[in-house]
């Protein structure tokens, strides 16, 4: 059995570990288009901030690929998939046959057309190369504008600020973190950034990037007619699934590469996982692209197992983000911005002064989402109610609303099965 994995991010690592749980013999070939082994992609903000050195980026130990008997080919981009001949061709002119293929090509930054964007001084912030380019550039710049107030934009801004750069964030919508968090959490995070000296401007975006005669950036003209002087622009509006390869091969795509409950695509023997995949979501129970780290690993892992012959259903991803802003921890899990709030029961505890916030979203007798800011120590206990779809009677709901989740609120049989399953002596 030959497994080929296109991509070398966390979904790929999950797949390798999934395959090797069941198949210790088969050949695994991994095609990575970057020049380094898999790294903790979110760590690039820690690297840019100077909190960690490059030696701490690797997601697995140096001998991981050898131990897992993986043929890792770096600087290698897949250029085409032939699902009939079951081959992948690469930019190096190789044609690699596969029995099982995983498409784990991730996402690519979305760069909208902005006049003046072509040229030097405009960056994205999703790869190690981007981070290293920004580290080099930060030495020479005094001011930067970050376009996009999502997770990537905010972390890019914070990290650049830590390098001594004066940063202004432009966010088109009315608040930062609008996708992953709710309004209150977004406001608390924005406040924390503003307190440290980062400019946060909502409801505006870049209209034009202005350059001098030599082509160097001198500033950004915003949609509300302001001019923000800067020497660099980071475009962090979002990522889109890198699904062209799959699409060109005739594999069904929608927003991302469509997969079934086993994470197999429309082509037999071809699976997809991670930010490129449009897979099942646990809460919404439909297939969607939720480009977050744990989903990518899990999809890779379960795709890997299924590629190795397991016949397991992927339970579905659960949207979750944990991120801190200058020591203010924030966590968001599941559905936190329900489309029709009147159909849900929403419990909020907000202490603006101490910057503590808790929001729980209930649908019928289930918890389907929560946000925590400031006090996050019980996060996992809330996650359990969502993930295990536990029914929530009134007494339990009251305890959760008071910020007191715990295992004794679990149904007895779930508790026993989890913590004290019948053993050999029973």
């Amino acid at each position, binding site marked *: 059995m030959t497994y080929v994995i296109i991509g070398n991010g966390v979904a790929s690592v999950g797949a390798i570990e999934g395959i090797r749980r069941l198949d210790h013999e088969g050949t695994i070939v991994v095609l990575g288009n970057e020049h380094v082994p898999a790294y903790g992609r979110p760590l690039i903000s820690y690297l840019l901030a100077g909190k960690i050195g490059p030696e701490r980026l690797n997601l697995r130990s140096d001998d991981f690929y050898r131990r897992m008997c993986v043929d890792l080919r770096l600087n290698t981009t897949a250029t085409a998939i032939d699902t009939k001949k079951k081959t992948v061709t690469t930019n190096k002119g190789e044609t690699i046959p596969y029995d099982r293929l995983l498409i784990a090509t991730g996402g690519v930054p979305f760069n909208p057309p902005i006049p003046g964007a072509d040229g030097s001084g405009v960056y994205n912030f999703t790869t190690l190369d981007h981070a290293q380019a920004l580290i080099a550039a930060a030495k020479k710049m005094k001011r930067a504008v970050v376009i996009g107030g999502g997770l990537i934009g905010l972390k890019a801004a914070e990290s650049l600020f830590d390098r001594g750069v004066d940063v202004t964030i432009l966010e088109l919508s009315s608040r930062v973190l609008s996708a992953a968090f709710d309004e209150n959490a977004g406001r608390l995070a924005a406040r924390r950034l503003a307190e440290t000296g980062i400019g946060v401007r909502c409801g505006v975006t870049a209209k034009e990037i202005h350059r001098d005669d030599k082509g160097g950036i001198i500033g950004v003209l915003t949609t509300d007619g302001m001019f923000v002087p800067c020497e660099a622009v980071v475009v962090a509006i979002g990522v889109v699934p890198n699904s062209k390869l799959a699409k060109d091969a005739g594999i069904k795509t929608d927003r991302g590469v469509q997969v079934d409950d086993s994470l197999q695509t429309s082509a037999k023997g071809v699976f997809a996982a991670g930010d490129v995949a449009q897979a099942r979501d646990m809460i919404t129970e439909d297939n969607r692209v939720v480009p977050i780290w744990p989903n990518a690993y*899990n999809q890779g892992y379960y795709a890997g197992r299924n590629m190795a012959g397991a016949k397991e259903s992927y339970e579905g991803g659960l949207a979750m983000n944990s991120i*801190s802003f200058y020591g203010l921890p924030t*966590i968001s899990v599941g559905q936190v911005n329900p489309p029709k709030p009147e159909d849900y029961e929403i419990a909020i505890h907000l202490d603006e002064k101490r910057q503590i916030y808790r929001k729980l979203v209930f649908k019928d007798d289930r918890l389907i989402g929560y946000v925590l800011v400031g006090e996050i120590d019980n996060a996992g206990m809330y996650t359990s109610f969502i993930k295990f779809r536990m029914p929530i009677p009134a007494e339990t709901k009251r305890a959760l609303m008071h910020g007191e989740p715990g295992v004794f609120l679990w149904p007895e049989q779930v508790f026993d099965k989890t*913590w*004290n399953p019948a053993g050999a002596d029973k």
Partner: protein
Amino acid sequence: MKRVYPDKEYCIGCHLCELACITVHSKSQDLIIAYTQERLEDGLKACKRFQEKGPTCVALSCRHCDDPACVAACISGALQKDPETGATTYDIEKCVGCWSCLMACPYGAIQRHPTLNKIVKCDLCRDREGGPACVAACPNMALKFEER
């Protein structure tokens, strides 16, 4: 693999498991110094999460799941599955304190370190001969270390 199984029917809430845990994970290896000094000065903390409701109590810790949610969520590679022992291992040097594991683990088995930007998680007392110290210290056999 052998795991620690807590039994709420037998737990008397004495917290001796926590004391055993901090002692074995202390620099001094001495209960009194661990409790009076290292706990306060270094943020030494037991990896147990003690829960109680009325007369019922239990001391929980990492289950070393077969398919751990924490490993999937870990952005730094600090949490991994040891293919040989089956343990879910934690490398404090790699950890960046992002709290993704704390969010992802539905068993509440991961806690923040009181003073460092790190987590505290059961390591099954891997360096201790005779297995987990909490199990050895439990006076009422409420903690068992066995294959199930």
